[in-house]
């Protein structure tokens, strides 16, 4: 009997604790969320912008390039607009699925000084977290998520709080296919996908247009872990002109292009924005499409590039970075406009959603001016750019 002496007081204590917790919890959330709604945000204070991007893992190169440009944008633009802004980074490695993006959304929503989110950079992360952001009234502007269903179509994965400053795959897939039909006059095309959402979406979109255009299409599919593509190369008919290879790993596009040469095939690789990396994908004759032009060719951006290069010595200007500069510019302009309308304070972060929707920028980093389409949260009149790789490895704009 002696060993039971402690039980009674302990059990009683535990039950009391549990009861207290349950009542507190049931009472807790309602009054706390009510408190959130009435809290105004002063524009004089330090405002935070969350940044959700893969900083590590296989797509880490993308996130780090974006980060360098986003930092540069905050550093140069915020003081001009009279704002104090800091970036808070969150890492969503593509290997880990949607969970990190959801956890980060909770983190940023809980932090009252985070007013908007830059990103998420990958479409999967957007789909996983956009509902939470929307319900919390947090605008999120992605510099690189191109999945079509995030802004249009049914089932719609996105929400009205999601914006992107680059066009989606609904433009990329078809415009790549149209380029093949109109400019390259192809008769036979091999399409590959890699059993992950990005390539499936692009290959499907291109396939529809190609088939309609009377092109013979051969669709192949390789597991996403494939490293040696030689057997898929063997499947490419000797009279096929193009292999559409929408990978997110530029190194694989390079491997495939080389193995085509090795096996004496005349077909050229055509990659999507995921393979746009001139340090890894550099087989002459291959094509790459991307949502951003090479900004080194835009005269108005010269000073900007020089400034960025000073902060990032020894780094080359890629095509993922500049759109994130643009996205930061959109967010900051919206904050400035909303602050002006709210006379020095924001009623809550929700006001930024409509402010972003109405942002207009005249000196857009990717050339021309910028505004969102009225029908969806996509940029108006944006287009995809197609490059061909030159013998010296540089990318030349061809369409």
């Amino acid at each position, binding site marked *: 009997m002696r060993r039971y002496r402690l039980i009674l007081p302990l059990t009683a204590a535990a039950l009391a604790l549990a009861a207290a917790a349950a009542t507190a919890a049931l009472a807790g959330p309602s009054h706390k969320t009510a408190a959130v709604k009435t809290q105004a945000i002063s524009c004089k204070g330090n405002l935070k912008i969350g940044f959700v991007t893969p900083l590590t893992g*296989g797509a880490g190169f993308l996130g780090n390039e974006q980060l360098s440009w986003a930092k540069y944008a905050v550093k140069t633009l915020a003081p001009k607009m009279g704002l104090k802004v800091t970036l808070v980074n969150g890492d969503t490695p593509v290997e880990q699925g949607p969970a990190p993006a959801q956890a980060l959304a909770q983190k940023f929503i809980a932090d009252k000084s985070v007013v908007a989110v830059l990103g998420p950079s990958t479409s999967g992360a957007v789909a996983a977290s956009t509902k939470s952001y929307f319900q919390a009234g947090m605008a999120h502007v992605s510099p690189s998520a191109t999945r079509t269903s995030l802004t249009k179509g049914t089932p719609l994965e996105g929400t009205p709080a999601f914006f992107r400053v680059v066009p989606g795959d609904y433009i990329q897939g078809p415009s790549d296919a149209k380029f093949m039909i109109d400019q390259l006059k192809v008769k036979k095309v091999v399409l590959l996908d890699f059993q992950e959402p990005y390539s499936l979406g692009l290959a499907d979109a291109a396939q529809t247009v190609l088939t309609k255009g009377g092109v013979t299409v051969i669709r192949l599919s390789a597991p996403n872990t494939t490293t*040696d593509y030689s057997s*898929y190369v*063997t499947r490419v008919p000797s009279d096929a002109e193009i292999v559409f290879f929408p990978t997110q790993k530029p190194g694989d596009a390079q491997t495939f292009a080389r193995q085509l*040469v090795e096996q*004496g095939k005349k077909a050229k690789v055509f990659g999507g924005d995921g393979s746009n990396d001139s340090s*890894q994908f550099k087989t002459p004759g291959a094509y790459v499409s991307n949502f951003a032009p090479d900004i080194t060719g835009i005269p108005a951006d010269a000073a900007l590039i020089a400034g960025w290069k000073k902060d990032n010595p020894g780094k080359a200007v890629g095509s993922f970075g500049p759109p994130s500069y643009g996205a930061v510019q959109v967010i900051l302009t919206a904050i400035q406009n909303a602050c002006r309308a709210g006379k020095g304070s924001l009623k809550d972060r929700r006001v930024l959603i409509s402010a972003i929707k109405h942002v207009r920028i005249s000196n857009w980093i990717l050339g021309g001016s910028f505004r969102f389409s009225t029908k969806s949260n996509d940029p108006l009149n944006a287009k995809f750019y197609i490059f061909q790789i030159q013998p010296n490895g540089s990318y030349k704009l061809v369409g």
Partner: protein
Amino acid sequence: MDEFIQLTVNGLTLGSVYALIALGYTLVYGVLKLLNFAHGDVFMVGSFIGFGVLQALGGAVDPVVPLWALLILITLSAMAGCAVLGVVIERFAYRPLRDAPRIAPLISALGVSFFLAYSMQLLFGAQYRDYNLFSASDGALFLKGFHIGGVRVSLVRDIIIASAFVLMVVLWFLVNKTRTGKAMRATSFDREAAAMMGIDIDRVIVFTFVLGSALAGAAGVLFALLVPTQVSIGFVSGLKGFTAAVIGGIGSVPGAMAGGLILGFAESYAAGYIDRIHFGGFRIWPEAAGTRWTDLVIFVILIAFMIFRPQGLLGRPDIKKV
């Protein structure tokens, strides 16, 4: 027909690499009865060592030594580096657990695998490392070779297949014709009895790890001649090598070679023909699926082995000793 032969060539190339990896699994399993899950990551480290030495020797385009010497040097250094790595892993992660419950070294092996893979990612990042041999002597390695009709057996494939074959012959000689090899076989047959016969078990095990890891290092370099290397090939190719070892009968040296080739051919032919397989119009997978079920072929082979011949192609059935 050309297509079939080309696929066979592809499968043979891939299969010889898999066989080299599988040999490492099988050697260690034979002697220690340990599934060395870290082996795939040793393979990956080998390909990185090869890359490092290649850069140190001036890179593929403008090397300080002739191309043939360059290839031999990077292979040998990767083999040596991996052998050291294998010995260190054995000494610190497996030896303390030699008498522990069977599950303990397996879990330790998983830990080593994680540790190696992510340490490499920490130090060298996740990006691809390209040996860039395509640019060496104007692409001779890839563009020259046997051209029979439409079939192309490029030099680099000849090199991979021939080196793998040579390494396997050397291994066969070491295992079957030397005293140490005899000691290995004795240990594999019955460790305690071998110890009682005066065989230095520790030495045999270290030797086994040296052999297995050196083969993995060589495989790493050979594979990286063909495609760029990166951290994640450790897991992916390690799993393939492991599958090959299981198909061939884990613990059996000729089994691992056979298993590697079977797997290489299976993968190659699956990518080549899977979307054209149907039985009088009836398709197991829909036509629209194309080649996407290629991995399934490997599983069908595996399941067949697991059910009908669990000890693998050339393995011995596991007899329980009391």
